[in-house]
């Protein structure tokens, strides 16, 4: 809008007004062009700062150890070496970690979608006694910071006997008040007429939910899938407290221990960066596929 009005002023100026204002308009065009180029320059510079580290990450994973230490900035290795990846896949537990992360993430995502949409629908549309109390309870629960739960979750998991098992790693992660809210907000935006039509046709609550309303909720479900995937793939503290045996280790915990020197005593950067790079690939793929949806969601995932 600013462009058009300014442009129309400029156009008028050129024909109708005397010379001095034309110089003024020419100058303002130049000023605007300079401002735009400046904006582009600043943005590109900042974008480089944001992207370059990841390029370094990938490049360094293909360098040899001394090369990585000697030449940290370059994006092209002096000698291409896949030793880091070989060590990672053949002589460490990395494949186990990857498998565990995949299993846990898929189960948690599926579980969350199912349970959150059920609960969200109930809160949004089903009239039952105590609905408001439950809602208030959910809000209160969301306020508890994660750090308070670190120790006690371990204690509870222990007492329930699911410590050091897939159940212990997956079930607690299914608790997701924020996801319930996302689904609830979405369901509230679906016109009641749809449901009323279904009820007149004789559908029960679950049937209405499952066959009619849920398919309409696809955008919200996709958002939930993205958030759950990201959340459980990148989760660390829960996996620290819920399992300890090496067969159950996930990517986050494994790479964290790699970083603090578990596989060997020494600074083997290409190895650690290779692990970090592979760890990032699934979320990156998900991100690029669903970019538009992620960047448009105003209630995005919060990184702590």
């Amino acid at each position, binding site marked *: 809008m600013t462009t058009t009005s300014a442009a129309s002023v400029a156009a008028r100026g050129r024909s109708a007004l005397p010379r001095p204002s034309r110089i003024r308009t020419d100058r303002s065009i130049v000023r605007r062009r300079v401002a735009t180029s400046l904006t582009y320059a600043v943005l590109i510079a900042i974008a480089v700062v944001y992207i370059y580290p990841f390029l370094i990450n990938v490049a360094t994973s293909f360098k040899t150890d001394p090369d990585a230490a000697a030449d940290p900035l370059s994006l092209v290795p002096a000698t291409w070496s896949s030793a880091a990846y070989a060590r990672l896949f053949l002589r460490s537990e990395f494949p186990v970690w990857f498998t565990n992360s995949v299993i846990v993430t898929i189960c948690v995502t599926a579980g969350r979608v199912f349970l959150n949409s059920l609960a969200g629908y109930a809160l949004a549309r089903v009239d039952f006694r105590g609905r408001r109390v439950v809602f208030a309870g959910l809000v209160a629960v969301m306020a508890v910071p994660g750090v308070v739960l670190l*120790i006690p979750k371990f204690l509870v998991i222990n007492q329930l006997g699911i410590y050091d098992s897939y159940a212990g790693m997956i079930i607690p992660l299914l608790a997701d008040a924020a996801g319930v809210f996302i689904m609830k907000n979405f369901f509230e935006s679906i016109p009641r007429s749809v449901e009323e039509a279904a009820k007149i046709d004789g559908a029960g609550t679950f049937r209405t939910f499952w066959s009619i309303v849920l398919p309409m909720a696809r955008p919200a479900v996709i958002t939930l899938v993205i958030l759950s995937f990201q959340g459980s793939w990148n989760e660390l503290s829960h996996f620290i407290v819920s399992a300890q045996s090496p067969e159950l280790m996930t990517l986050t915990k494994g790479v964290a221990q790699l970083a603090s020197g578990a596989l060997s005593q020494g600074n083997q950067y290409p190895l650690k960066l290779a692990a*970090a790079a592979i760890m990032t690939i699934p979320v990156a793929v998900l991100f690029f596929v669903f970019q538009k949806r992620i960047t448009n969601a105003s209630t995005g995932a919060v*990184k702590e």
Partner: protein
Amino acid sequence: MSTTTTARRRPRGSGLRGREAAAGWLFITPVLVILGLFLVLPVIMAAWVSVSDWTGRGSPFSGDVGFVGARNYRTLVAEGGLATQDFGTSIRNNAWYVVLVVPIQTAISLFLAVMVNRKVLRGRGFFRTAFYFPSVTSSVAITVLWLFLFSASGAVNKILSYLGAEGPNWFNDPRGVLHVTLSAIGIDQPAGALGAHGFLGITWWEWLAGPSFAMSALILMAIFTTSGTFMLLFIAALQNISGEVEEAALMDGTTGWQRFRYVTLPMLRPTLFTVLTLGLIGTWQVFDQIYTGTQGGPSKTTLTPAYLSYSASFNNGHWGQGAAIAFVLFALIVALTILQRFALRERNTVPRRKRFNQPPPAAGDTPPALPTSTGSQP
């Protein structure tokens, strides 16, 4: 909802309404059970452990575990021994982290949002993606990358050497940044009171040490990873500001900066509040990066309360103390959130000194709110 009432009263729990209620409870029960088991019950259990002397063997609810009252809390906050010093150190480190990360990340994300939101810009999608990508990655992966970038012979120090400066050994340098600057201008020793008295076992002089170089690297990492998320929130809010308001302001002859300061910024207040709250809550719980990267070192300058709570319990077996730290942190976060809500609340009346005309304060009517002073910060 309730349609026109019929003459006869339907008993609750039967018929259509009753079935719907049952279905509703059924739908919500799994979520409630899981939340109850893994969110509510843990908090109760932690509360019990923090006032008991459980040593880590067997169940905390067993018969031999005794109630010790506020002993764990007292050791933590009042006694002045090693536990208090560690707790004070962790609070100090985290306080510097919060004070630096929250304002900077808010400012940068707002800046990026404004830049990316300009209408003339092409490639907006590319920039948004580039700035948001770090937020998508795992904190573990980013920490590993950061350890490499900021190592003694890493990329950052290489760049600094091109600029002529000698970069510090980032992740291993325990000196506080503020202390280093002060000693550069000659102030090495604390002045009297600063060195003699303290809080939570640490002298005031040490409170003012500033973040260490290692902590500073972590601060930069936090800003790098969270600015993208908040940028998106700001973009959404900016796009919600209707263009007519902007045009009206333009017609009034305001410059870009004035427009931003007096029109855009006040309308961003709710988002600003959200961003600040999320930032506060998130920064006080730093754990993943510490666990992966520095484990509290060098010299306990990256020790944070969340990590201290974990390490006191799992590594040192002081379960009661660990739980106590967690609750103190909880209280701190809640207090800060309430404080922030209070400080940033909408005021319905214009502060007295900003009123242009001062009608006598009678008859209970408030003076008209003038556009230039509504909601602007003093």
